[in-house]
């Protein structure tokens, strides 16, 4: 039996166990909530975790399609990137997979273990990229929001270079006064 087919056979069990371990990385009151509440809208974190982790398990036994893996990981990490986790904590869930597979499939051959190990490392590296991307997004949306907040001002400022419109002047000085007032 190939390692893929072994993993495929047990993928639901692996995903379930993995999910429970990841849920336990939250405060105990919360981990129970994540595990028990089934509604995807009332428990979006639990739902996203569950879907994402089983998606990854599925790919482990198939072809490790990078785009699917990336989507699953992104869904999970996007949330963990804004929760109370340090960067290492945020992606630590990936390494739990090794532990879970060891427990569910203790009979794996050395080669198979090596396969799993390599796959987990691959996922970990991807996770690192995704985590960084999420954090960059976080700072970018902050900048973008500030831009939108003064969208009209920027629009006007661009025109200002060419136009000598009194209205523009009023507008700009008014807002600049105000910004000074706020700062």
């Amino acid at each position, binding site marked *: 039996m190939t390692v893929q087919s072994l993993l495929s056979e047990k993928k639901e069990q692996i995903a379930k166990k993995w999910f429970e371990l990841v849920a336990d990385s939250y*405060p105990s009151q919360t981990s129970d909530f994540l595990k028990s509440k089934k*509604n995807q*809208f*009332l428990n979006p974190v639990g739902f996203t975790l569950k879907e994402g982790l089983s998606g990854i398990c599925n790919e482990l036994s198939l072809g490790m399609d990078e785009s699917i893996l990336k989507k699953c990981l992104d869904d999970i990490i996007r949330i963990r990137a804004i929760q*109370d986790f340090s960067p290492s904590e945020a992606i*630590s869930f990936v390494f739990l997979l090794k532990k879970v597979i*060891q427990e569910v499939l203790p009979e794996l051959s050395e080669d198979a273990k090596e396969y799993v190990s390599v796959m987990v490392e691959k996922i970990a590296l991807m996770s690192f990229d995704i985590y960084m991307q999420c954090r960059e997004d976080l700072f970018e949306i902050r900048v973008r929001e500030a831009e939108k907040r003064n969208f009209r001002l920027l629009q006007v400022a661009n025109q200002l270079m060419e136009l000598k419109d009194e209205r523009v002047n*009023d*507008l700009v000085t008014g807002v600049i006064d105000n910004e000074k007032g*706020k700062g």
Partner: protein
Amino acid sequence: MAKFTKKPKDLIADIDYSKTPSTDWMDTPVEFKEHTFCWGAKGKNLEIVGFPNARDWSPAEEDWKLPHDWENTVMDAIKDRLSKYRSFKLFMDICVRCGACADKCHFYIGSGDPKNMPVLRAELFRSIYRRYFTAPGRIFGRLAGARELTLQVLKEWWYYFYQCTECRRCSVFCPYGIDTAEITMMVREFTNLLGLNTDWISGPVANCYIKGNHLGLEPHTIKSSIEFFLDDIETITGIRIEPSFNRKGAEILFVTPSGDLFADPGTYTCMGYLMLFHELGLDYTWSTYASEGGNFGFFTSNEMAKRLNYKIYAEAKRLGVKFIIGGECGHMWRVIHQYMDTWNGPADFLEVPKSPITGTVFENAKTTKMIHITEFTADLIRNNKLKLDPSRNDNLIVTYHDSCNTSRGMGLLEEPRYIIKNVCNHFYEMPEDTIREKTFCCGSGTGLNAGENMELRMRGGLPRAMAVKYVKEKYGVNMLANVCAIDRATLSTLMDYYNPGVRVTGVHELVANALVMKGEKPRETNLRQEPLPGKEGA
């Protein structure tokens, strides 16, 4: 080599992935984590409105520069508010901690922090109430769930009560109707007595007090920014609109959140108002003095909110209008619907609102004399007073986000939906548990829409974002409509993070896109100056 004697398996077992706080909540001290709280208020902004203990301060620093007898200030204030608000007193006494509210808070769902469960958020304060205001608390102390008021407790209050958006979702599920918003308002009052507010709230409050609006736009700036919209409208429709400002004798005063004057995409909603009113030939005026519908004072103290709200009736009286129309805003409508008349009424100098176009009398506003623009527009559409071409919005697949305040503090649910369905051909609801009275907050209400607390906002907005994601994947939704200025700004950001490709709009932007105006040139673009469906090649 001794270091490596452990087998790999054991090493894995050694890593502790769990973050469970094993301690009781009273023994878990608050930790100020970066990106989860707003910056402290500036002294000069507090001074402008006469708030106590005006000085610059930073929540992240150890020393909060509190007055030396701050405990007494808080105690006196608690006593005073208990005697003034039955809601406050009752909600202190009757909670049975059944936990029905626990998982209803968007901040709890998104963060998993137990102190974000509404019941525990309230207990942060209730424990102090018990200690100093109830006999069992005085006698049995901790056994009765009581604890001493310390600096740590104060900091914990500040951290968590500025993580509540007063959305009232918990109140919907509470068997006794306990409303955490009421408790948050009170605790925020106490913090304001010590000069503990955020820069993001106190800045707009000071601006609004002196200049009439949160952004601090001066009269000429308001006018010129609206004139820029008029230029854009002329470009799009070929029609030049000429609104009036501070005009005496107008029939209607129009008040909207000032965010619509500057922040994208609220600006398009504002253009929508201008176009609609022009098309109707409405006899209305803008005011530069009462140029703010929103009320950040509401996030500081009841008194401050009243002081800012005063301008609306005062200006209506000065200008001699008959009634007032209010624009699309969330907390503005909580204030106008449930507070304004009580604070600054009776508005006996106004008349019961009557639509000059349809003749409909708005009996539901017969004492406050202010109607919501979606009530006004829904009535127009119902009476066939608008020529609409919804196909102009055919590139939009729309869903609608109920604002917390208009849904749970007013009940404005069908009016905006009726309008959207008449101006758009593709409208899909989000799942039932996430709309109407069960709507999820944008995560940035009550003045939490700053930049420095972005992580917190993304946690609070998570449940909303996930519901949008669902309709995005299922129906291809690409436009999130709402009737709230804060939503328009913050949901855009939320979508950028979780659901790129979904944009945000006010309802009246959609209306104006579909509105066929008399004498307009064939429209090539929508208000955002993007090609209309079918005109992409042009």
